[in-house]
């Protein structure tokens, strides 16, 4: 059932919110973007996602779907006849895409996030090493999944490209503020080239925040004392 209004509760700076936005763009589905104010949660958000109280939340005919990767699958299945397939068609490739998406959230993103939190040279070195190791793993995953094509999903961007690519804005900001190259063409050539292709994709460009704007936002939120 593709009828019914589509709304997305989110925030422009959130990489997780970017995931369903890219998927909706791939499927050419118009939607209303309901921006949350940083630092507070709307009644609608609390009502739509009482379990986690987090964004993104997709509202399709007022019915909520939560968790970014689950929303992306939902979009792919609901608007299956529109645009390219977001998930691969073969069950094994789908299992691989889901596996790597989980790895990205549980390990790779955790490594990325620990980098700006690192205090002093020792911790920074350790954080860098951890991220480099995770990047090397993803470089191999890209070669395995893409099978010579431009994206993890093949000819077009898909579920796994979206799962990783959404973090590229924050990766660039971390590189800027930390002064370290985090995605190195020398160490991960395939992944680096993929990153450029991903950012230039027409479904991605309108929702990828500008690095400068994101850097300014980062300064503001990391300046706040931790709870």
């Amino acid at each position, binding site marked *: 059932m593709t009828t019914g209004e589509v709304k997305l509760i989110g925030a422009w700076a959130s990489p997780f919110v970017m995931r369903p936005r890219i998927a909706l763009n791939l499927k050419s589905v118009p939607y209303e973007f309901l921006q949350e104010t940083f630092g507070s949660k709307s009644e609608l958000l609390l009502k739509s996602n009482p379990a*986690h109280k987090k964004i993104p939340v997709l509202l399709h005919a007022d019915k909520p*779907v939560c968790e970014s990767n689950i929303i992306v*699958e*939902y979009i792919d299945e609901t608007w299956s006849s529109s645009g390219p397939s977001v998930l691969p068609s073969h069950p094994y490739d789908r*299992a691989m895409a889901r*596996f790597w998406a989980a790895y990205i959230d549980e390990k790779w993103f955790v490594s990325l996030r620990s980098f700006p939190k690192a205090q002093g040279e020792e911790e920074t070195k350790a954080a860098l090493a951890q991220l480099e190791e995770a990047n090397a793993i993803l470089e191999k995953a890209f070669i395995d999944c893409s099978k010579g094509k431009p994206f993890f999903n093949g000819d077009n961007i898909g579920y796994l490209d979206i799962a990783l690519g959404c973090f590229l804005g924050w990766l660039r900001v971390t590189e800027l503020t930390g002064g370290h190259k985090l995605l190195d063409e020398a160490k991960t050539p395939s992944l680096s080239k993929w990153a450029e292709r991903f950012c230039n994709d027409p479904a991605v460009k309108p929702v990828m925040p500008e690095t400068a704007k994101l850097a300014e936002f980062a300064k503001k939120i990391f300046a706040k004392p931790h709870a």
Partner: protein
Amino acid sequence: MTDEVILLNFWPSMFGMRTMIALQEKGVKYEYREEDLINNKSPLLLEMNPIHKKIPVLIHNGKPVCESIIQIQYIDEIWSNKNPFLPSDPYQRAQALFWADFIDKKLYVCGRKTWSTKGEEQEAATKEILEILKTLQSELGDKPYFGGDEFGFLDIALIGYYSWFPAYQKFGNFSIEPECSKLMAWGKRCMQRESVAKSLPDSEKVGGFILQLKKIYGIE
């Protein structure tokens, strides 16, 4: 063409139970291999799951599928001709996947705390786990199964924990039944199924395993 299916597992794992149940529900013949996670992970496990080195690992015609929730979906998609686990409606599927994710994010860590911590921390954990179970209970509602009339994906995702409930209660010194009688009834209902009865260990055995873990980790 006959499929070769191997499952690398460790008997107390509520995650491995999911995959065993899923394979049984589909009538898939497979080879079960017990891993000794405490002393010695097998070379096959390290080869098939180099990233996490964890069980369960499903090996289908030599190719590994890791992560239990992903395995249930894979099994459902490959052996799609009988007993579908996930609903066909995309919205219902998204709900099932959401709650499975909720279970993995909340229940495992909290459950562990009921037996591995003491004092205030343990008390907080027993309170939190009851809240989590009550949330799941309201998701179940008056349906016989989370899947509705049929045993399905979310039932498979949660039922393994049912074999750990007695241990959580014993070590955590609290009771689940008073506030979660519908959920406990669901557990008993699921245990009537052959796939579940064959895959869940005896709760006494789980209790013994926890005692073993506490000794190894030096937890009183």
